[in-house]
């Protein structure tokens, strides 16, 4: 039986691990390579790195991070942030990333998803979506809108429509990130996650809002997510990956324990 995955998200700014609160005010909390190795030893299922470096000239630092991580950890990891072309994606995959995450650039030019899927296979292409709750109306039948640039810019695109289009274009997985929940540690957006998970036939990774083990249980059962992204709850040592997985196992969720 397939296990539910626990994925740790590391926001990396100029080579350092940063944690954002509602996508503004970020502060550095350590070395991403060390954190990745620590989580790997503790039984983490997967890693995702988001490059939140503001200036593109510092992007090569991210390649160094990816190379260093690939030398040390032998679980899948994906990288996102600033990928605008197949060439951008290719550099990260060559440096050792398993998958690439596309987000804002794909909203601006959806063909990017298809181009990456053709070049690397759908299984290597993850579509990350940042989503805000809005009033349900003709423009937003799902009641959710896609936003870009770290949550700052509305797009006028309905979230469910975009999820289905992303699947159609060849994304192999979806990250559903609620901007409303992100950084609040008050729980995932269950309604949003379930709506998308029930509509698409590719795996859905829930993101934003994890603060307690109960939140993971909720999103992996009621929310129908295939995987749950965690960040601050493990970054500051409040919870451990192995502790979370043991807790979920005891609650009846199938997770990988014996690593």
């Amino acid at each position: 039986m397939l296990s539910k995955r626990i994925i740790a998200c590391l926001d990396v700014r100029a080579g350092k691990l940063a944690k954002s609160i509602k996508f503004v005010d970020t502060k550095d909390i350590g070395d991403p390579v060390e954190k990745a190795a620590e989580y790997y030893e503790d039984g983490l299922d997967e890693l995702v790195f988001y490059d939140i470096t503001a200036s593109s000239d510092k992007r090569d630092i991210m390649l160094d991070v990816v190379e260093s991580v690939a030398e040390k950890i032998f679980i899948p990891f994906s990288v996102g942030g600033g990928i605008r072309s197949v060439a951008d994606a290719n550099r990260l995959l060559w440096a050792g990333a398993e998958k690439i995450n596309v987000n804002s650039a794909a909203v601006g030019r959806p063909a990017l998803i298809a181009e990456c899927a053709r070049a690397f296979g759908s299984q290597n292409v993850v579509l990350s979506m940042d989503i805000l709750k809005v009033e349900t109306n003709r423009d937003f039948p799902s009641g959710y809108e896609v936003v870009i640039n770290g949550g700052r810019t509305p797009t006028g695109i309905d979230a469910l429509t975009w999820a289905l289009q992303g699947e159609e274009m060849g994304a192999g997985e979806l990250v559903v990130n609620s901007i409303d929940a992100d950084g609040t540690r008050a729980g995932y957006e269950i309604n949003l996650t379930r709506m998308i998970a029930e509509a698409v036939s590719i795996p859905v990774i829930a993101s934003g809002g994890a603060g307690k083990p109960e939140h993971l249980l909720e999103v992996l059962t009621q929310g129908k997510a295939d995987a749950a992204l965690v960040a601050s709850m493990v970054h500051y040592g409040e919870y451990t990956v192995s502790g979370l997985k043991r807790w979920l196992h005891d609650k009846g969720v199938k997770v990988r324990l014996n690593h």
Partner: protein
Amino acid sequence: MPSAPRVAIVDYDAGNLGSVRRACQEVGINGVITADPDQIRSADKVIFPGVGSAESAVDTLHARGLFDALLDFYASGKPFLGICLGSQILLEHTDEGDKDCLGIVPGCCERFDYADRQYKVPHIGWNQIEIQRPHPMLKNVQDGDEFYFVHSYFNRPTEPHIVAMTEYGHRFCSVLARGNLFATQFHLEKSGRKGLAILDAFRDWDGTESC
């Protein structure tokens, strides 16, 4: 002192071979990534990895003269390890692009097809193996251990070649073997310590099925 075995990692533009080479290094295998048919024929061991589409992969194998080189290598009786897409191409035929494959193992490769959204395709994530029969390549792992899978097509070899099964909507063959050939549907290079444990066994494997 005998020289270190030459392990060839087959390069046919199918995925991140660097990950396989790094995982090999971790267990003391110095793999050489190569697309040269002669280097593959003369290697002591071969790793045939891969991700992506079987259709273009089979075309690339033909274009580079690797198709026959892999058949020759298998016939030599030396240890041969297939991973993921590499395992699928060992069968006679794949439905992905309706391609004839190497045919080292009787059987074919079919697509997961679920109307029920409970089973997403691709099958992505960690899943368990149910070992059907002992094999020296599995000496470091146990029944129920979990490995990392990413695939939309699954292998259906004939029964004698099934070594382990995995449940995803239905039970499918996740490890197959025939003589000096051993292949996994899951990614050994991305399956943490358990994956490295199988690569570790490959380092010592003599290519026989006796435990």
